[in-house]
């Protein structure tokens, strides 16, 4: 009985095993095993922030096409180190950058110029007669960035403006790419004070369109020195230089568009 069992099962196993071994030999596919290993190292969020379709593709691109190893923003320094070590190259991680919406003109502060009737999507709305916000550089608030965000780090507030929660942001830049008004930028995570306006229009035009717009008065440059710089009629933060007297600058800004982002409020 035991002999029969052993022979039956053993024989079948042998036949199947030989058949499979032959199949594996004749139908073998050469594949670089490193691709799979590198995919394991990557975070597996498949956010596409690196510009490739998912982590697997990025791993393939690094190994087969020699793509940069520094492209994985969500991974942060730790994963970059791992990738670099795996590939045997040196790479230095800069500070993590997070997205921020440089506009403070919500529905209460920045009026609309017409009654938009259509698809609730910023790109769609922007294409209809130039968008319904009076300010040409203001956040439309239809949430294209929030939908593009793979980790739900962007919220459309009750007053119709997009706000990034920096502690949730993985730095994939998808929102930056989708915003039709180009008002989302990547800033160093440690920085909290920003110019919440992207309008390069002249002061009078900005004033008509928004209560909290930058009118290009240069007071921030005067009081904040090199930590601010002018881009036409728009003040911009120079994140290389820290602001010495932050409170004064915030206080002096006549448009109230230089604001320190409160971590608690955002969270």
């Amino acid at each position, binding site marked *: *009985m035991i002999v*029969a*069992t052993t*022979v*039956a*099962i053993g024989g*079948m*196993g042998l036949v*199947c095993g030989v*058949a*499979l071994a032959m*199949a*594996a030999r004749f*139908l*073998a*596919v050469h594949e670089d095993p490193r691709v799979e290993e590198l995919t394991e190292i990557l975070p597996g969020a498949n956010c596409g922030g690196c510009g490739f379709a998912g982590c697997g593709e990025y791993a393939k691109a690094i190994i087969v096409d020699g793509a940069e190893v520094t492209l994985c923003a969500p991974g942060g320094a730790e994963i970059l180190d791992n990738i670099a070590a795996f590939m045997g190259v040196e790479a230095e991680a800069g500070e993590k950058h997070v997205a921020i919406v440089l506009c403070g003109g919500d529905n209460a502060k920045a009026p609309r110029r017409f009654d938009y009737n259509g698809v609730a999507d910023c790109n769609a709305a922007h294409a209809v007669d130039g968008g319904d916000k009076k300010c040409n550089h203001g956040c439309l608030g239809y949430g294209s960035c929030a939908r593009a965000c793979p980790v739900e780090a962007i919220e459309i507030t009750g007053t119709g403006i997009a706000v990034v929660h920096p502690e949730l942001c993985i730095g994939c830049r998808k929102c930056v790419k989708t915003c039709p008004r180009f008002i989302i930028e990547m800033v160093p995570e440690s920085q909290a004070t920003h110019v919440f306006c992207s309008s390069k229009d002249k002061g009078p035009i900005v004033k008509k369109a928004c209560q909290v717009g930058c009118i290009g008065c240069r007071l921030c440059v005067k009081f904040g020195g090199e930590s601010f710089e002018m881009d036409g009629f728009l003040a911009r933060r120079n994140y290389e230089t820290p602001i010495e007297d932050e409170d004064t600058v915030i206080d002096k800004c006549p448009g109230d568009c230089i604001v320190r982002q409160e971590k608690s409020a955002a969270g």
Partner: protein
Amino acid sequence: MASYFLIIAGAVLVNNFVLTRFLGICPFLGVSKKLDTALGMCGAVIFVMTSASAVTWGVQRFLLAPEGVFGKDLRYLQIIAFILIIASFVQLVDIAMKRFSPNLHGALGIFLPLITTNCAVMGVAVLNVQLEYNFIKAVVFGFAAALGFAVALVIFTGLREKIDRANPPKAFQGVAIALVTAGLLSLAFMGFASLVK
């Protein structure tokens, strides 16, 4: 001839493996997202189920049955023997697909090796024994059962593409709504009840 027709109609419509016997639900839910992938899965399942039916019939008849070559009743080995055979066939499909259609192989992912544990395949092998089908009937039944699986999967994939665009309440999103749909589809298939006795 008529009996074969009845086997096919019975396995495809009346006692559909997925919708009436509730076998093979895992790939049914897993690979019903895109029609192309679903068709690939159908092909794989049809191949595995048909050939597994044939081979398991032979194994049962000539090895395990008391009148087999060993002359002993080895039927208690049925499950382990069948699993061995099915696993080998799945492995074969896996290797072949990786070679000839890497895209499909990637799209099917884990569900391809999981055909091994697809209870439909095991089910058809066991049912063949239970129903005491002869070789041809066993192969036809295996093929028809797989065809029933394929029909259900293709129909469900079509529905899935529609319900993926639907707007269910949060609690029902994803697999939940897919299962509700599968239930309703099963309800519709009850219309075929006692079509074939």
